[in-house]
């Protein structure tokens, strides 16, 4: 929290009550909320100062500043889209960064195992069981969905918003879709591994397969949580 510096001196109980009301209406990561509250507090103190130098006693100056800021619900409404966008961006970036790493682990695990006649990368192998072949194609579809939705999530939450029509739900929706895509890819990877363990476990490279499985399981859980969180934030937007 050092980014926001030491806490401001309180602007009196009324200001703190107002800020608490705004905070209570904001969902999302605590860090984002802390930054918003710190900024609003300094603005309220500035407004109260202005009313004090215009002649109001401190307590009334604080109340006038609060009136000037408007209903807590309205202020929180304005910030909700911003919080959803920044959360969506974080989720999309995390998915796009971890995807290739987990994917490389699976490719390494498959390459070190003896699954089929190798003619290149795993999806070009000949003689692999039909189930494995179909599974790998489904993984490719899930990876494609994740990548495109993730890129859209990043585009809809950053500088490209300049040129896009203002639709606050776009970024959290895209990030949630990317999360579900990642769950699909990781879940399929684990299912293929389970099928291989059930049929011919001896052909697997144990260390790399275990590493890929652990990485995918972790990503599956985190992607699921992130997708649900994005959907929850999306639901708070008009």
């Amino acid at each position: 929290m050092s980014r926001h510096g030491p806490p401001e001196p309180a602007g009196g109980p009324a200001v703190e009550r107002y800020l608490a009301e705004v905070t209570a209406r904001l969902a999302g990561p605590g860090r984002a909320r802390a930054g918003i509250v710190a900024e609003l507090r300094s603005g309220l103190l500035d407004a109260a100062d202005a009313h004090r130098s215009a002649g109001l006693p401190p307590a009334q100056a604080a109340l006038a500043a609060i009136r000037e800021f408007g209903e807590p619900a309205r202020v929180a409404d304005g910030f909700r889209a911003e919080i959803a966008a920044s959360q969506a961006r974080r989720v999309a970036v995390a998915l796009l960064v971890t995807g290739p790493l987990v994917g490389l682990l699976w490719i390494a695990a498959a390459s070190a195992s003896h699954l089929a006649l190798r003619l290149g990368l795993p999806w070009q192998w000949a003689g692999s069981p039909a189930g494995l072949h179909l599974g790998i194609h489904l993984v490719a579809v899930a990876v494609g969905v994740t990548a495109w939705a993730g890129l859209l999530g990043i585009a809809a939450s950053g500088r490209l918003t300049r040129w896009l029509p203002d639709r606050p739900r776009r970024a959290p929706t895209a990030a949630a879709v990317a999360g579900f895509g990642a769950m699909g890819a990781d879940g399929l990877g684990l299912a293929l591994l389970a099928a291989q363990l059930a049929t011919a476990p001896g052909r697997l490279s144990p260390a790399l397969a275990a590493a890929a499985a652990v990485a995918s399981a972790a990503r599956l859980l985190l992607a699921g949580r992130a997708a649900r969180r994005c959907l929850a934030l999306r639901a708070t937007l008009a």
Partner: protein
Amino acid sequence: MRPETLKGHLDGILLAVLDPGPCHGYAIMEALRVRSGGQVDLPTGTVYPALHRLERAGLVKGSWSAAGGRRRRVYQLTPAGRHALDAERSTWRDFSAAVTALLQPAPAALSSP
């Protein structure tokens, strides 16, 4: 002036207020009030989310500053923000010229049959 009337122009107005130099939230609000001759008097709390949206779009840059003993988030235009402001100004000039012409009472010579 009702906030609804300003809808769609708030971004451009905020960029214009930041044109002379960096400003923090409350000073931006004061500038809005003064420069509009008191016509624009938004709930101050609604200006902050708009500033965050502009920052996300890369049109302004916010940073914490401790000048004057109070930590404030200070906003300044980015080069992209300056471009956007120029575009907003010329769009507004064309639009307002057209609407002014249209809203003017038609000359008597044209309205009589």
